């Protein structure tokens, strides 16, 4: 989708991604819930755009609060964030781990339809209310329920372990595993530069060694380690989606915004299995649409925020979006291309493995990270944005390559 009207994102805000790895995280003590995360992120954005009076609509992206927190009806939390949002339209959208991306799509559509000049988009998930082994049951609902019984105890790690196994068989195990370990190292090294990242305080000396450890199929999956997996996280992210009018109303100069130049939103049949487990075809299609509509190629991207729920998903994505030839994703990573100083820095604050993966928030978090990078707000994590590459891409995925939201952003000045 190519917007028929100028559309921007501004005023991003991320809470801390809370969970194992954060020093202040203690599963036995009472912690912040949905309300606190929604409030912190929502108010964080409102403060930057002149308050609730400038907001026309609200949208919340969330996957499974109904089970993690026994809470539905999240659209009606908007007025809790700020009383100025009472009686304004607001809704919650869901598309598994792409819920955050869908919140952005929903907000973009509202602005395009001219029903709003400013939409407050928030993504939120609070997952540490249950142990990981029960969380796995909840997260498994992002797959087809009729396939749960035959799935792994850790359903999605099992799905992506199978993808890794198929990839090993087709292209070789050793180099692929080295690349997966490097993916982990990049993620942690980037997370160490971002104070809100779950792995910010990671002190592991030898990240390569940690990443390359042999998987233990008895306790976990056949082909993946914990280091190959995204985190179990509590967190929220918010951003404002605005028209030119909205930008003016908020009194924000153009240079502090990023332009949304194209959106690729694609879904595939949840009841079917991937035709080829070594390809992410829905990601391929969504990104193709986004790049085509933006009128650019991958070579014009300064950075990508991609959905590395598992290292192997990150690797296969590189091939599926055309950065590397099929079977060459591992080389692409090992040559250093995806590191923060490489050809195309990917997941510059750690991605889902390093920053964290509060499922429903992730899509919005990616947009906030892109906004920070393109407007020079990324602090210690700031990368160089070359003048001839003013674009960035975010890829947010739900389930096993079933719902994908790809967005192309452009630096405004």
């Amino acid at each position, binding site marked *: 989708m190519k917007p028929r009207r100028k559309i921007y994102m501004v005023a991003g805000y991320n809470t801390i991604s809370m969970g194992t790895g954060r020093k202040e995280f203690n599963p036995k003590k009472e912690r912040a819930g949905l309300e606190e995360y929604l409030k912190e992120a929502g108010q964080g954005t409102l403060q930057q755009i002149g308050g609730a009076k400038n907001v026309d609509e609200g949208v919340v992206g969330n996957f499974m609060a109904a089970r993690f927190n026994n809470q539905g009806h999240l659209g009606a939390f908007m007025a809790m964030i700020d009383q100025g949002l009472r009686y304004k339209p607001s809704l919650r959208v869901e598309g598994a781990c792409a819920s955050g991306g869908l919140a952005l799509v929903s907000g973009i559509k509202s602005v395009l339809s001219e029903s709003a000049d400013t939409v407050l988009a928030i993504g939120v998930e609070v997952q540490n209310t249950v142990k990981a*082994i*029960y969380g796995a049951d909840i997260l*498994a609902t992002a797959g087809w329920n009729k396939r*749960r*019984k035959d799935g*792994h105890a850790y359903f999605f790690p099992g799905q992506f372990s199978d993808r890794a196994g198929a990839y090993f068989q087709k292209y070789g195990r050793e180099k692929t595993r080295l690349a997966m370990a490097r993916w982990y190292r990049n993620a942690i090294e980037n997370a160490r530069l971002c104070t809100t990242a779950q792995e910010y305080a990671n002190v592991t000396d030898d990240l390569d060694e940690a990443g390359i450890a042999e998987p233990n199929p*008895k306790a976990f999956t056949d082909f993946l380690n914990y280091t190959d997996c995204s985190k179990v996280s509590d967190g929220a992210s918010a951003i404002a989606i605005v028209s030119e009018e909205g930008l003016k109303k908020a009194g924000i100069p153009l240079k502090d915004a990023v332009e949304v130049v194209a959106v690729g939103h694609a879904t595939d049949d949840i009841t079917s299995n991937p035709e080829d487990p070594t390809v992410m075809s829905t990601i391929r299609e969504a990104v193709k649409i986004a790049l085509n509509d933006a009128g650019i190629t991958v070579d014009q991207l300064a950075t990508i925020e991609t959905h590395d729920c598992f290292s192997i998903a990150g690797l296969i994505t590189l091939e599926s979006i055309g950065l590397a030839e099929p079977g060459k994703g591992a080389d692409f990573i090992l040559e250093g291309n995806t590191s923060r100083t490489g050809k195309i820095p990917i997941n510059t604050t750690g991605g889902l493995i390093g920053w964290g993966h509060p499922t429903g928030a992730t899509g919005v978090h990616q947009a906030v990270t892109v906004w920070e990078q393109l407007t020079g707000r990324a602090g210690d994590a700031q990368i160089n944005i070359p003048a001839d590459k003013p674009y960035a891409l975010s890829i947010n995925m739900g389930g096993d390559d079933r719902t994908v939201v790809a967005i192309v952003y452009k630096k405004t000045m």
Partner: protein
Amino acid sequence: MDYNERISNVSVLGAAGKMGSGILLLMAIEMADQGLKPENKGKPYVLNAIDVTSGALPGLMKYIRTQVLKAAEKKVVVLRKLYAHRADLVDNGEIIEEYINDVMSIIRPGTRLEAAFESNLVFEAVSENAALKVKLFTQIDTNSIVKPWYFTNTSSVPISGLNEKAGIGGRILGFHFYNPPAIQKLVELITIKENPDGMKEFAHELAKSLKKIIVPSNDIAGFVGNGHFMRDALYSIEQAEKLSSEMPLHEAVYAINKVSQDFLMRPMGIFQLIDYVGVDVVRFIMNVMDPYMSNENLHSDMLDKLFDLEIKGGQYADGSQKDGILKYEKGRPVAVYSLDKKDYVPFADFASKTDAWLGELPKEVMPWKNIIRMADKDAVAMEAFARLKVLNSKGAELALAHARRSREIGLQLVNTGVAASAQDVNTVLATGFFHAYGPVNEFVN
């Protein structure tokens, strides 16, 4: 009778106790896992949890349920395969719940010994009282239709004596778990020459299934583990008493405790270990062992005094530490009991002075939690002791003397035939006491 038939009907005597409850948990899980195998489908498994304290049984069942839940959560990957045939169990949560029900349905709690009359295997984990053990074995054996094998968890009473007095024809061996049985890897196995064919092999097979490491011990009171621990404890008490010419006794106790933990790189100080096991239990074990040791006096006046003053240590039902020789806050020692003052004296009142007296801990001597993670612990220990030897401090001096005494005790256990080898002694200390290095080594000399 094969392995499966042997464990199809089991009784645990003293099931509500510290050791009994752990053994019950291990057996309940092992029996349930066997029952879930396709080849054992439909076979009944019965595990009698027998304890005289009727009031403790509900708490016991609650404890077992909680522990089985934890175990199930850890092995849900395997459980999903075991319950693959059950179409109605889809979520991990459903499978875990079903597994708990399957384990719990095996256990029959009760106070009556009659339940054991049909058991093929009887675990005995009652208090360390030889006469009581003999009485129970005799009663079961007289009435049993199957003439069971008896696995006693005694940590000190010789097995041959129990066998003779109970008249059970050699169907008894020592299967000594360490506390807590569900966690500690070590089982000391004490066989006697009268054991029937296959009994020892079964014991090994069971230990393997329970993921335990067996160290054989000869049938000499105290066996290997307590043979070392009791002598090590007595040595420490003597050292503290000796030091009391230079400082108050409670400060000396603190000093020796610190030396044995920090300088010897052990998981806890020796007086904390005595508290962990229980002052009363340690004293009791010494009393059991003493008559068998012709050239030694296994007895401590200090422990008697503490016992008389009700300073006992041991643990609460939830596993937390009771105050003993030391006083604990959140599991960490914070004060030491003074026999003079009849009260605890906070470490804060004197520790800096005593620490200075002991001297600085060299950097080569690392905390136990660090050395235990190292690949080559012996090399690290060797370097630490090399440093202690050239360090001119009280702490180093006491540590070296203690390590040498510990080595001497280990060698004594080998020389008197309690342990088959120095390696076995080292394995017991490594797996039963979590020591980072075995006492019988060359680097302390």
